[in-house]
């Protein structure tokens, strides 16, 4: 049974009386424990797709199943963890308090096990910052807190919407490796939206390349690189080949145009 099955999803929006097709006949699936990446140009609907899996937006047509359930059921059962592009931490709560927010929503303040929270704090590398508030943390640290928060309910599906998009390149690579380390501990099924091809190849088991207008999947690339992934793999031939293939799919006929120029 697939952990995530997206079956022929379409989405149209009504803007100012016109209907805009954001997604058309999108299908993909992920096996349990797989890490998937969605890359595509802006406007291809990848963030919308992610939000449909999380039951924040509903599809116009098609079906999504998350670990055998409809997204709504999965969401209400707290089986989904979501990491946003901006950390979306509550500014009046400390790091620990932010991390345990999902648990408070599930079962009230008494349902929170401080030891479990502390373990997560240490897992994401924020030991010593338990009582710091978001304004005292850097962008990378805030995202680590957000990741911990997404994992606190031991979700069956982890969704990430360009989590490191706001960070500079050096920080981004560091966070990628951190996320890989953290993810290796829980091995949740994960789907990440990114606009960086290298990030996708470094992190994922499968990459889904999308095109825009209308949003659709144009290629699916299986990344067979050995885990645990390392920064040193970036220069290696099989890594580069995968990046090239993804780039070709992403740019489509633009590549020919650029070659002629």
């Amino acid at each position, binding site marked *: 049974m697939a952990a995530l099955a997206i079956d022929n999803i379409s989405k149209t929006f009504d803007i100012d009386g016109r209907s805009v097709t954001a997604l058309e006949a999108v299908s993909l699936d992920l096996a349990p424990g797989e890490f998937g990446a969605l890359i595509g140009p802006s406007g291809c609907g990848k963030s919308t797709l992610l*939000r449909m899996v*999380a*039951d*924040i937006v509903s599809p116009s047509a098609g079906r999504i199943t998350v670990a055998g359930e409809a997204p709504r059921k999965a*969401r*209400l*059962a*707290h089986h*989904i*963890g*979501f990491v*946003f*592009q*901006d950390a*979306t931490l*509550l*500014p*009046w709560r400390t790091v620990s308090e932010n991390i345990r*927010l*999902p648990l*408070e*929503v599930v079962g009230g303040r008494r349902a929170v096990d401080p030891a479990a929270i502390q373990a997560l704090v240490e897992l994401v590398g924020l030991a010593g910052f338990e009582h710091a*508030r978001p*304004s005292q943390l850097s962008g990378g640290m805030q995202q680590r807190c957000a990741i911990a928060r997404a994992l606190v309910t031991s979700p069956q599906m982890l969704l990430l919407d360009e989590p490191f998009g706001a960070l500079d390149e050096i920080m981004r690579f560091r966070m990628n490796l951190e996320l890989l380390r953290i993810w290796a501990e829980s091995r949740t099924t994960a789907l990440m939206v990114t606009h960086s091809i290298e990030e996708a190849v470094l992190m994922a088991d499968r990459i889904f390349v999308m095109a825009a207008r209308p949003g659709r999947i144009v290629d699916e690339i299986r990344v067979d690189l050995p885990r645990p992934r390392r920064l040193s793999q970036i220069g290696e031939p099989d890594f580069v080949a995968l990046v090239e293939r993804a780039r070709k799919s992403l740019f489509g006929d633009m590549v020919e145009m650029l070659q002629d120029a």
Partner: protein
Amino acid sequence: MRETGILRRGAAQLLPPALVLLAALLGWEAAARAGWLPLTVARPSAVLRLLGSEYGALLGEMAPTLFAAAWGYLLALAVALALGSAAYLYKSLEGTVLTVGAVFNSIPIIAIAPALIIWLGLSLSTRVAITAVVCFFPLLIAFVQGLNTSRATTAELFTVLAATPLQRFRLLALPGALPYLFMGMKITAPFALLGALVGEWTGAESGLGVVMLNAMFGLQVDRLWATVLLACVVSTAAYAYVCLLERLTLPADLREGEAV
């Protein structure tokens, strides 16, 4: 070492304006003595002398005014919090609450005061009611604005967490509304004294407003300026008090708006 640094910086900030104020007052006094100012403008020295000599009596007169102001403000705050929360939890009510509030806010205080006196009679509780009506809408609007402020992604987060509306209210809206509420409370604090004064001007037996009005009609220039000064001092003190409350409740990075 740190304390003296703060003191020195505080002094550096306060000293220049304080000196300017002092200079302005001295200039005023000199102009008045030279006979340049109309008789209706009191001399600072005369005002201070009056305050010094009638200190006790004036404070006594202020008691009912302060009572009406304080209780009216608290009543308005309680009702604003209740209605604001209801408007948030039951979205259909929001439009109605805000429209009714906006209309009420357009009713001039000079109409509200006599109306309430006609209906409720001449008593201290009427003046509490007048103050409450005056303070209500700004508090409500600040609170409702604060409750509805949250980033789109934070709202989505709470959707993913499958939070109930009550949980959204308790964990997201309420804490997020505090900075805005305090902003509203700061702006409204001086209005409380105003409501009490207008209530007294419309009809009362005692209070600072009565003293003010008598001084105005009796052309007792020094007394009028003295009582107005007292009113100003009290309203500034109320504002400062709310600022202090905010400083104690909210950490620095969550406070909105300028500090005095």
